[in-house]
């Protein structure tokens, strides 16, 4: 346990004292303490299920029933609803942004608090003016009249921050703010956070990415299994300290993949192109070619908008009308015009977004696993519950999926286990090639390591794997070869021995980024 520096106590704006919260007999929070300092970035880390979200829901008035105290500016306070927390200057920026896409930036910032003119109509002039002022404070130079839907995710995030500031917010909670934005946008966000600090705003920063802590955080609080593990000023801890506190045991170096025997080339694509859906003559994927051997992991690296996901989608037959290129399986050219074609050829696609693309959330674990290969659970033309349970049980054991039973609704599983269910679904189709799109996004450290181990096992079994990742350490640990995409084009290819983080990043940064650097997005 680390002890906080006592001299800082004057600057405490918000304090949570021995907060406990129980859901149906299970303690989600167990006597957690938290101190939030003015003008600082107070980071909170912990695995999925550590209690971070629950704690934030208590602090922002979403959960009103809890044990313990919340102390704001030295006074004990209770929030009857989220709006009261907002009134007291606490705002939260969720991972999924809460903006209305078809309203303008200004309309979003002042939603529900529009300025009204004497005629009883909305005073747009004043609203645009105020919004522009707020955005300038945040260094975002966009027209407040444009629709939010036309902004990039990173810009939308800043609009949400503007919304928070317009409420005279003194404490901004950010829940994994960098999970969906590009490297460049992260830099802009961090500049913004630093400037908010100097304005005296307290930031509560929730993250999975430990590297970020050392760039931006002043203090860090670690939660595990609903309990406080410790708090410390960031100078007093190392990366490994934090990881140890999170997982509760010493970890070795980053996962080391066992080398699989690589044999002949099983899969290759040549000149894959995907036309831009709106901009005529422009390509989202621009003449990409690669080959993969059985037992090999090909890493695809690229920043947001590099066309990584789109490349996988094109290979999987999701854009037959606007794509071109050649796909070869064992040296023979094949046609893939739909996901069905791809699956029949032995290609599996594990998508980036589990909830939107990977799972039917209200289905059971068993039904989710059998979904893409349901014919093998048929007996005399009718589905057999026995066969389905057997199939699912087999994968639950093999992939160590944590679930009370295969009948469990998949929505109730943790992120890591949901991901394993998706992998099981694809393994059940007996694929020879697996396309993995950010397979470890948003899952905790332990689950990540299990996914890595799984990928390693699959290559041992002779699968060819194409894996997209935007985490450099991850791709360098897992991939045998790395291809870098930038603005739809293939800009580099490395074998593992050639690759360094700098070289990869250099190849990934689009030329246009370098020109319009920093302050403006």
């Amino acid at each position, binding site marked *: 346990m680390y002890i906080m520096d006592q001299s800082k106590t004057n600057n405490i704006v918000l304090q949570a004292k021995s907060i406990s919260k129980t859901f149906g007999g299970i303690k989600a929070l167990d006597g957690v303490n938290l101190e939030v300092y003015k003008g600082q970035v107070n980071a909170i880390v912990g695995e999925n299920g550590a209690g971070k979200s629950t704690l934030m829901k208590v602090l922002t008035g979403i959960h009103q029933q809890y044990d313990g105290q919340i102390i704001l500016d030295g006074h004990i306070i209770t929030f009857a609803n989220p709006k009261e927390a907002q009134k007291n200057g606490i705002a939260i920026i969720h991972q999924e942004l809460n903006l209305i896409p078809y309203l303008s930036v200004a309309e979003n910032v002042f939603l529900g608090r529009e300025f009204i003119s004497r005629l009883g109509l909305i005073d747009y002039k004043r609203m645009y003016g105020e919004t522009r002022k707020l955005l300038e404070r945040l260094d975002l130079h966009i027209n407040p009249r444009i629709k939010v839907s036309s902004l990039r995710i990173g810009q939308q995030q800043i609009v949400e921050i503007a919304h928070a500031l317009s409420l005279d917010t003194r404490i901004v909670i950010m829940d994994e703010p960098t999970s969906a934005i590009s490297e460049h946008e992260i830099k802009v966000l961090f500049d913004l956070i630093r400037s908010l600090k100097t304005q005296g705003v307290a930031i509560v920063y929730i993250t999975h990415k430990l590297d970020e802590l050392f760039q931006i955080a002043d203090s860090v609080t670690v939660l595990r299994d609903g309990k406080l593990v410790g708090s410390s000023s960031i100078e007093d801890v190392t990366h490994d300290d934090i990881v140890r506190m999170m997982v509760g045991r010493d970890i070795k170096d980053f996962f080391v993949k066992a080398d699989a025997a690589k044999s002949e080339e099983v899969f290759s694509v040549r000149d894959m192109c995907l036309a831009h859906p709106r901009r005529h003559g422009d390509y989202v994927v621009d003449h990409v070619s690669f080959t993969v051997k059985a037992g090999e992991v090909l890493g695809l690296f690229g920043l947001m908008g590099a066309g990584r996901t789109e490349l996988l989608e094109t290979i*999987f037959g*999701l854009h037959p009308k606007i794509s071109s290129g050649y796909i070869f399986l064992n040296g023979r050219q094949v046609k893939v015009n*739909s*996901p*069905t074609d*791809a*699956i*029949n050829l032995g290609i599996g*696609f594990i*998508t980036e977004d589990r909830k*939107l*693309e*990977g*799972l*039917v*959330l*209200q*289905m059971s674990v068993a*039904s989710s696993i059998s*979904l*893409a290969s*349901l*014919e093998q659970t*048929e007996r005399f*033309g*009718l*589905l057999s519950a026995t066969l389905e349970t057997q199939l699912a049980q087999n994968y639950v054991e093999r992939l160590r999926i944590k679930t009370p039973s295969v009948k469990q609704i998949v929505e109730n599983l943790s992120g890591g286990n949901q991901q394993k269910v998706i992998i099981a*679904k694809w393994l059940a*189709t007996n694929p020879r090639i697996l396309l993995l799109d950010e397979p470890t996004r948003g899952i905790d450290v332990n689950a990540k390591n299990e996914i890595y181990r799984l990928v390693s096992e699959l290559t041992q079994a002779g699968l060819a794997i194409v894996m997209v990742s935007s985490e450099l350490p991850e791709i360098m640990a897992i991939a045998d070869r790395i291809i870098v995409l930038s603005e739809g084009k293939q800009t580099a290819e490395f074998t593992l021995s050639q690759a360094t983080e700098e070289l990869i990043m250099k190849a990934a940064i689009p030329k246009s980024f370098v020109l319009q650097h920093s302050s403006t997005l």
Partner: protein
Amino acid sequence: MLELKVQKEILVRFQSLLALLLMVVIFSVCAEGFFSKDNFWLVLRQVSVNTCLSVGMTLVILTGGIDLSVGSILALSGAIMAGLFKNGLEFPVFNLFIGFTLPGAVMAGLTVGSFLGFFNGLMITRFKIPPFVATLAMLTIARGLTELWTGGAAITGLGKTFGYLGTGWFLGVPIQVWTCAAIVAIVLVVLKKTRFGRYVYAVGGNERAAKLSGLNVNRIKLLVYTIAGALAAVGGLIVTSKLNSATPTAGDGYELDSIAAVVIGGTSLSGGKGSVLGTILGALIIGVLNSGLIILRVPPFWQKVIKGFVILLAVAIDKLNTKEQ
């Protein structure tokens, strides 16, 4: 505490059944003549048409769609069966006359119903017209075609054999109840025990994930709307046979009763969640309510108001329960 929780779960699970039983008990006490053998069969016979439509509607709603055209398709299919059986088809230009036997006429009507459903599906999958709009258009089209075909007047005098299906009994049970039970049994097996059934849930639960899992989403939807059309035609057969005539206004507003049955039965309008058994309970609840209110001589206008509130109540209870979980 655990026991209480278990009890509550059972209560939630069987809430429609409990509501139905409660209504039966209340009407049995209050409405003289409600609890009788005659009324039992009367209610079931009345419910059977709605059940046919509602079973099809359940499939459609499970995929996340809606079908507003079933009432009109019912009318057109019934009119075609009646018209072909009575008058046959005449082509004066070719000096050609085609007569129809009863099975022939029925088959023709079922084919037309299925085709209109298929056409709905085609508009929805091929041209990406929202189901609400596509089937709203079909509601008007099919109704117009019915009026054209009948010339705006009822087709009557269809004879005893035609009427048998709607008024006859077999082994002590009305024929239409048999028909309806057979349909329910088949659809139950299809939903629970076939790939198509599983895919219906997957498409409604998450269309994108279903597509990425290699499901032919368009084909599944096409089939679902075709089945809804075919079942509406079966409804048309029952109605026409019961009245021994096909009227151009038959089935007017039936789509709403069938949607109500599905919703009361706990199927989610956003798709992916629900069951045929729930729908049948929903249809029975509406049927029992209708019957009870009529026996109690509640004025027809008030009946509508009460029915509306029952729908709200059913869904509100359902929502409250899901919120707690």
